[in-house]
């Protein structure tokens, strides 16, 4: 017979923790979180240093600003949502059966850990590992393990660190907890206070039948909870796996270094979460909310899915330098698409090829240097129009066609854009041209080669091509007469 065993991970001051998670430099200093719309903003969450300096729940912004060195942050539901996802991700590493609860500013996640002893060791060790894992993700938590769901929840909410309640010792473990932990309705709480009941132990000691006679079935429920015997029907969550991090800045950020500092932590968290699922990051979308409400978005697509945080951060740095935001950044969202790690079979006799991750960084740097659309592999268009090609992203491993029989072919060197020239003709053949600086007499003119196409669209062309040999230089040029506009261009040079 399998016995029940639950571990409750409890995070106090969750609105504050969700904001401080990505700002470790604020962990030790007094910080309070304000909730509500200006001008009615009240403190809803704070840490211990803030409490010691005199901050209290419900204090207005004006009162809070009077406290020396108290940092005030605005509550962000977006940050809390992102933090909750990270919290559940970490917890899911220990058990897939989870249930979450929220009370005020506290957030708790209860895991069904029955049968995990062989994987993680005894409950105390498991609880320690949970605490450590969540601390790694930036959360300060307390963990309680019990065979009773409610006992674990109540104990984790009141005790610090790790507590393990032995089986059938729930009543004793909860006896000293205050009655307020049950969150009783005011009327019943007042009644119990009049009876002199202050702790759960005292409530559990009340006779059951008499309690039901006076308070109804609710009374029995509270008594059972207090004695650690109330049963619970577990409703496991089905967490959606999404790799998303959000951070809202207290003051808008203008320097990219400051942004990268925060982004580094976010990418750290994303790579760790992806690695936890044996996945890699295939795509990173960085969305920035700018001052004034505009949005700026960058996309990083490494050639191969990776969890190398330094590499991803380098790509982000280069992309930011190439496409800087127009104004200061108020909030940053990083979303990742997970992919499976690449499996490349290397061989001793394979040709020398660039390393994929280094090539990604090199390509990003080249794009930043010469422009996004000026780096890549040329692909010929299916047309007879001259100089028709498009650029595609350079990728290793893409199959390419290779001619079996290669012969040297005289090559063209294009002039982009084509150089307008004045041409002198005799008997409808060019005999000399002037390029604006110098006149060239044509020794031999081969042509014309007439081509036209796309007459049904705006990109139509109709032209005569001449291969001309210059008398003075022994050089061959490609002269083009655009018949639509009757203009001559020097389009290329043979080389």
């Amino acid at each position: 017979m399998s016995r029940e065993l639950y571990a409750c991970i409890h995070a106090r001051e969750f609105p504050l923790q969700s904001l401080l998670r990505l700002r470790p430099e604020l962990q030790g200093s007094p910080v309070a979180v304000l909730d509500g719309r200006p001008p009615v903003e009240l403190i809803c969450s704070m840490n211990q240093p803030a409490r010691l300096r005199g901050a209290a729940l419900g204090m207005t912004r004006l009162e809070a600003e009077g406290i020396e060195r108290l940092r005030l942050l605005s509550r962000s539901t977006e940050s809390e949502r992102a933090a909750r996802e990270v919290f559940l991700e970490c917890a899911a590493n220990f058990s897939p059966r989870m249930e979450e609860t929220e009370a005020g500013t506290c957030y708790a996640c209860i895991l069904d850990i029955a049968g995990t002893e062989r994987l993680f060791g005894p409950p105390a060790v498991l609880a320690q590992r949970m605490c450590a894992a969540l601390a790694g993700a930036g959360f300060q938590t307390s963990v309680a393990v019990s065979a009773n769901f409610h006992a674990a929840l109540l104990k984790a909410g009141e005790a610090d660190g790790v507590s393990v309640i032995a089986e059938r010792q729930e009543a004793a473990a909860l006896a000293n907890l205050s009655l307020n932990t049950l969150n009783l309705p005011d009327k019943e709480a007042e009644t119990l206070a009049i009876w002199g009941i202050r702790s759960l132990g005292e409530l559990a000691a009340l006779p059951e039948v008499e309690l039901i006679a006076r308070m109804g079935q609710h009374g029995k429920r509270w008594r059972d909870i207090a004695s650690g015997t109330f049963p619970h029907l577990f409703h496991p969550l089905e967490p959606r796996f999404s790799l998303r991090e959000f951070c809202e800045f207290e003051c808008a950020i203008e320097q990219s270094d400051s942004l990268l500092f925060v982004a580094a932590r976010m990418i750290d968290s994303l790579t760790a979460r992806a690695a936890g699922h044996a996945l890699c990051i295939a795509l990173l979308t960085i969305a920035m909310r700018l001052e004034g409400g505009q949005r700026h978005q960058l996309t990083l697509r490494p050639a191969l899915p990776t969890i190398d945080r330094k590499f991803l951060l380098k790509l982000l740095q280069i992309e930011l330098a190439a496409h800087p935001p127009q104004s200061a950044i108020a909030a940053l969202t990083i979303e990742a698409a997970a992919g499976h790690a690449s499996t490349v079979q290397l061989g001793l006799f394979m040709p020398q090829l660039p390393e994929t991750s280094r090539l990604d960084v090199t390509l990003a740097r080249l794009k930043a240097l010469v422009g996004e659309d000026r780096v890549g592999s040329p692909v010929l268009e299916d047309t007879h129009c001259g100089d028709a090609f498009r650029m595609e992203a350079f990728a290793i491993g893409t199959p390419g066609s290779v001619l079996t029989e290669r012969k040297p072919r005289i090559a063209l060197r294009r002039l982009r854009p084509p150089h307008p020239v004045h041409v002198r003709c005799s008997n409808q053949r060019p005999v000399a041209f002037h390029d604006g600086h110098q006149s060239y007499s044509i020794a031999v003119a081969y042509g014309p080669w007439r081509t036209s196409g796309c007459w049904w669209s705006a990109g139509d062309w109709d032209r005569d091509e001449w291969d001309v040999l210059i008398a003075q230089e022994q050089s061959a040029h490609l002269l083009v007469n655009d018949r639509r506009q009757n203009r001559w261009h020097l389009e290329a040079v043979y080389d």
Partner: protein
Amino acid sequence: MPSANAIRLQIEQALESRFPAALSPMPQTVRETAAVGIAAIDGLLSGGFPVGAISEITGPVTSGRTCLALAFIAARTSEGKVCAWVDVNDALDPESAAANGVCLRRLLWVRCKSEAGPANGKPWSRLDQALRAIDLLLQAGGFAAIVLDMGDTAAEHGRRIPLATWYRFRQAAEQARSCLVVLGSAAYAQSSAEVVLECAPHEARGQTVLHGYVFDVQLKRQRSISTMAAMRKPPASTHSSIWTASNAWATGAKP
């Protein structure tokens, strides 16, 4: 009286801490070559362009420089290797490259631009961009051949490139085992270049249509010559050759 060998050994031992093997000549290594794919040029270069070194192809317009470089890239890409073409003046014609047998999917084309780019807020000329791009590509490694196409760059601009830059490229190319081919109207790399070829137009072929060209090529410089079998005096090597390139559409045409 001690022999010359003994004195040399003594001096070397005395200076060993500062200069290892001070008086012994460096052992000559046979440099690996990569075939260009044109028999006349491969014969002239005793196998092809050296791997891990700088090779220069110089000459005026219509001297076959680009055709030669494309033939080399075609040979490298046909082996499954990847190459890069750093185009200072954005002059490469992909159609000509494909006609020469270059596998375009294995060619990284970097087209320098004339406008001052917003990169880091500093304007870069085309040549500066190209030199920076070469640095990045050599550092990345893995490219079998990199062509620095300065064919339309004025010689006086090319000569302004410091010798230290060429020396750095030479070292990097050696480490990355890449063939760095510099295409220009004059030789710029000077002592850093392993091979310098000077091209010139010989004659055009065709009566009514331009069938092709005959080019002259001269070997102006070759630093390391294979001395594997130096027992016998090598036969007198030729330093110039002639080769022909036909027009892309002139398949099977008899000029």
